[in-house]
């Protein structure tokens, strides 16, 4: 992506395959991406697009029927895909790259006390005494907003609300001061008011600790809230990426257009919501051309024949669609996209007005 800064993590031509009932499916179909230190990078896509599989490869957590026949993931001068032993992965997973999962009920052990679940991680990775670990754990609990941490230290997870549990999961993920925090749908199981608080918390912690955040989500509202940059995934590929403003106010890929169009927020009440016709293609067979073509009303002949390359829109904004080829006819984007463009322009003008 941009080459202004040395990336903290760099993925090149990654392919991931899974063996399912003696057939093989390709979950990730050649993805490259660079993560810039300190940024918040959001990956958007529907279920089955491969967004969770992609980030699982960063921590060596692919299911046992998965394999990576191609690609590199460079982090701290090493190719993570060359790590074989569990021990090598343990130096990365939870220590340098941590993950916060969707459902705090399933990521905490219901039989162990909250405090123990935090100190366990600290003792394991940092070789500290138990009193020292306890001190750090209490500090972390306070940091993630648990009031009277000392009192709640010996509680069990069931004594915590959903939002508080997710705060504990975040505390555990940060226990070893990771350089990268992967948030896999961290707020999907939570109420909106709690969701907003958790997003604010992660942002505040990121300022304090300076880690780089990857968000995986299907919620474009959450993306707008947290992201500096966004990648849109479809059928195992990134189809468009750019700064959050570029993706929302000037999207170029018809799949991104379709996603924005299906949002009820941008719809007129008296008109039916835009629904993307059809279903994503099966990943068990090779996909010819653009995977989105059969559902894409802007598809041209070439979309069914040849896979499009990435076309550059700006130095930070790229989209993988033939519509950006100079030979393609001008496409008239859907109303929701025009609304977003107008909003972007309006915000720009307001800013220009304010700075005068």
């Amino acid at each position, binding site marked *: 992506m941009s080459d202004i800064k040395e990336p903290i993590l760099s993925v090149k031509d990654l392919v991931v395959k899974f063996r399912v009932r003696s057939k093989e499916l390709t979950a990730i179909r050649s993805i490259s991406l660079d993560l810039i230190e300190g940024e918040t990078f959001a990956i958007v896509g*529907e*279920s089955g697009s491969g967004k969770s599989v992609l980030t699982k490869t960063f921590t060596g957590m692919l299911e046992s029927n998965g394999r990576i026949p191609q690609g590199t993931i460079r982090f701290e001068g090493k190719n993570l895909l060359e790590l074989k032993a569990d021990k090598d992965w343990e130096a990365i997973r939870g220590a340098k790259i941590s993950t916060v999962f969707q459902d705090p009920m399933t990521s905490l052990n219901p039989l162990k006390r909250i405090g123990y679940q935090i100190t366990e991680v600290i003792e394991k990775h940092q070789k500290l005494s138990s009193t020292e670990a306890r001190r750090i754990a209490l500090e972390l609990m306070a940091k993630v907003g648990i009031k009277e941490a000392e009192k709640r230290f010996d509680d069990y997870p069931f004594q915590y609300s*959903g939002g508080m549990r997710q705060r504990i999961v975040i505390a555990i993920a940060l226990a070893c001061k990771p350089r990268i925090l992967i948030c896999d749908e961290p707020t999907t199981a939570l*109420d*909106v*008011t*709690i*969701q*907003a*608080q958790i*997003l*604010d918390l992660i942002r505040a912690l990121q300022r304090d600790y300076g880690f780089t955040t990857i968000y995986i989500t*299907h*919620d*474009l*509202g*959450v*993306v*707008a*809230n947290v*992201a500096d940059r966004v990648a849109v995934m479809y059928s195992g590929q990134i189809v468009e990426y750019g700064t*959050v*403003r570029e993706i*929302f*106010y000037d999207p170029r890929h018809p799949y991104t257009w*379709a*996603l*924005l169009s*299906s*949002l*009820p*927020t*941008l*719809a007129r*009440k008296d008109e*039916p*919501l*835009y*629904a*993307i016709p059809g*279903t994503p293609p099966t990943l068990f067979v090779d996909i010819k051309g653009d995977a989105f073509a059969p559902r894409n009303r802007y598809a041209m002949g070439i979309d069914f024949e040849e896979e499009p390359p990435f076309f550059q829109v700006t130095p930070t904004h790229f989209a993988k669609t033939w519509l950006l080829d100079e030979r393609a006819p001008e496409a008239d984007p859907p109303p929701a996209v025009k609304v*977003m463009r107008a*909003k*972007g322009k309006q*915000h720009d003008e307001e800013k220009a007005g304010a700075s005068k």
Partner: protein
Amino acid sequence: MSAPILSVKDLEVTFKNGKESFTAVRGVSFDINEGESFALVGESGSGKTTIGRAVVRINPATKGDIHFQGKKISGEISHELDTWVIRNIQMIFQDPMASLNERATVDYIVSEGLYNFNLFKDENERREKVFKALSDVGLLEEHAERYPHEFSGGQRQRICIARVLAMQPKFIVADEPISALDVSIRAQVLNLMRDLQKERGLSYLFIAHDLTVVRYFADRIAVIHQGELKELAETDELFERPLHPYTRSLLSAVPIPDPDLEKAKILMIYDPSLHDYDKEKPQWREIFPGHFVQANSREAAEYANMYP
């Protein structure tokens, strides 16, 4: 205005477990008009689902009445009336993965209600009714012989809706019908529910936590918090002039797909202790025409001047 199709008055639902009891819903009243989509919005544990389940008689009402088309349907009712309620009020559940019998064919699932109430003369009529329901939700006749696991999440929710339609109800309680679905599939199901409403004059009690969906779908919205209604208004009115601090905090928390606005927004956190209800208890008051809020007289005066 004509009489409401559903009328809930002073509803209370208490759950008992041995000596312990928990009141999930307290003093809830609202009317739903014929052909209307009425939304109940609240967070988990607020009691919104309990209200929906009280309407379809899964959770008995401890206090208060529920009337449907003028007949009282809460409390002890005759077997006949019970049958009538089941035929006329149907429910769609949140998770289409969990609410379909995995071992039954779609044909059986859709006709189960028909079997239970002998709603067909002969096999031909039953199959006709099943095919009609399937085609109404955009599925094909050939789907009838298949099993739920052969369908995607969106298609499964369509099967749930087909099962409901086969009963030809007048009123549908939809409990988070699209929360478990992907963004692009949500649109399909919402459109379908709307089309059916237009074609058949259905009324909905739509239970949801997602305000963006509710804003698109509902005619009126009631906001519920910890078992009590806090505010009720027409959809646009509620979004333009939210009065209760809880409604305002809920609206401020909804993420909007507009990065500049979303990044600049200030989150409002609702603190129930801000109400001073020691001296004067709150009441259900109409501040603007059709716009109700729970407030005491001091708050009511404040709310009335909130949007000059």
